[in-house]
């Protein structure tokens, strides 16, 4: 009887773990790959709706954004934007980045989307940003190494001042980096942790950590993503040091075997 109870507990504990929503297949993809979105709209403004339409856009929060060619107008979505029902409150949609946005792989960094009714009278919140895998190496101010990491990997964050565009980022002397961890419910895990940086190049500062060695999620939860930023000092008009930080960069863990 006890064994049966353990078995049932084991089975139902599997159901208790919340799946990532939305999810993508494949989980990593370039702008030239066909990707399928799987989304569950339970608990959103689109719950219970049978006909859902995709409103998709590229590079949210970045320059060079474009609307999806299938969007149509807000009050009259294009039929090409209609998602395929996949059970109650669940939908799928298949697209390829370069075709959807009419942009080159070099122009496409990320995308976001929402689901709406054809006439725009109901919608979900934005789901964003989701990043395309680069086809060419694009240097940037912040970079995580390796480019895809799991919870138990050595994660190195890098700040390359040569690519800073904000005055404080350009002027600061980096000293530490701060990581804020999130679980699969979007809750922060523990407190943010700061570690020292070391200079590895004339313009590059780096620091490393192992996520699951430093952050422990609550029972039944798992580490899902983290945000990191670099901290340093600049001198004010009186020549006194002032602490400044870069904007946060978000990284979602890739499940690996």
């Amino acid at each position: 009887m006890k064994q049966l109870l353990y078995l049932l507990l084991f089975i139902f504990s599997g159901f208790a773990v919340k799946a990532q929503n939305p999810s993508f297949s494949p989980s990593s993809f370039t702008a030239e790959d066909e990707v399928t979105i799987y989304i569950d709209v339970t608990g959103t403004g689109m719950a219970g709706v049978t006909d859902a339409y995709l409103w998709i856009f590229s590079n949210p929060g970045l320059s060079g954004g474009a609307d999806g060619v299938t969007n149509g107008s807000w009050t009259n979505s294009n039929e090409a934007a209609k998602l395929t029902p996949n059970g109650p409150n669940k939908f799928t949609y298949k697209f390829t980045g370069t075709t959807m946005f009419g942009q080159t792989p070099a122009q496409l960094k990320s995308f976001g989307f929402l689901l709406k009714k054809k006439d725009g009278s109901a919608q979900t919140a934005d789901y964003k940003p989701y990043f395309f895998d680069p086809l060419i190496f694009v240097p940037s101010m912040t970079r995580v190494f390796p480019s895809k990491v799991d919870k138990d990997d050595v994660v190195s964050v890098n700040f390359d001042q040569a690519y800073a565009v904000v005055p404080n980022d350009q002027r600061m002397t980096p000293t530490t980096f701060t990581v804020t961890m999130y679980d699969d419910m979007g809750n922060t895990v523990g407190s943010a942790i700061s570690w020292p940086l070391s200079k590895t190049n004339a313009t590059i500062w780096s620091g490393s950590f192992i996520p699951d060695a430093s952050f422990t999620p609550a029972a039944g939860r798992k580490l899902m993503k983290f945000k990191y930023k670099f901290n340093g000092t600049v001198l004010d008009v009186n020549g006194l040091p002032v602490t400044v930080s870069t904007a946060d960069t978000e990284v979602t863990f890739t499940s690996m075997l």
Partner: protein
Amino acid sequence: MKSIFKIATIPLFAIIVLAGCKPESIRDLGIQRDYLESLNGTWKLTKATQVDEDAAKKGFPFSQLDITGLFPYTDFVFKLDVSAGAPTTFSSTPGASPKIVKLVSGTWTVDNLQYPKNIYLKSGLAADTVSLGGYPVGASATLQLKKEKKDASTGKLLISYSYEFTKQ
């Protein structure tokens, strides 16, 4: 006279050619190496390298990082026991090092006793696999282990870790 000379030349040529076909003694290749036995012993980690396999495949810069000094990897000690030509037990003592293998102790097997490539570690129901990057034989006294990590949904190789050990 000319035709007699021609006739005599043919068997003479045949004798010269066939004389070169006599069997030669096979050179001694030396003692056959016992790769499995070479793994037997206590090994201490000396170097750890992390490779972004996707970046390496695309020819991107920043595809490899020596992580030995980032964390106390050199604390890690790995013991493999071989008895009667077969793998038996293993133990790992991480100290302050990050986990190289998930298991602390148990039994191990290999995919091929003569030319092992993969090492399968087992402890109860828990299991882990590492592959051999190089045997500690001949001029090389270094045991090289490799651990690969693949995308759970696509099976695409994303990261690999290479570890070098020296015998204690």
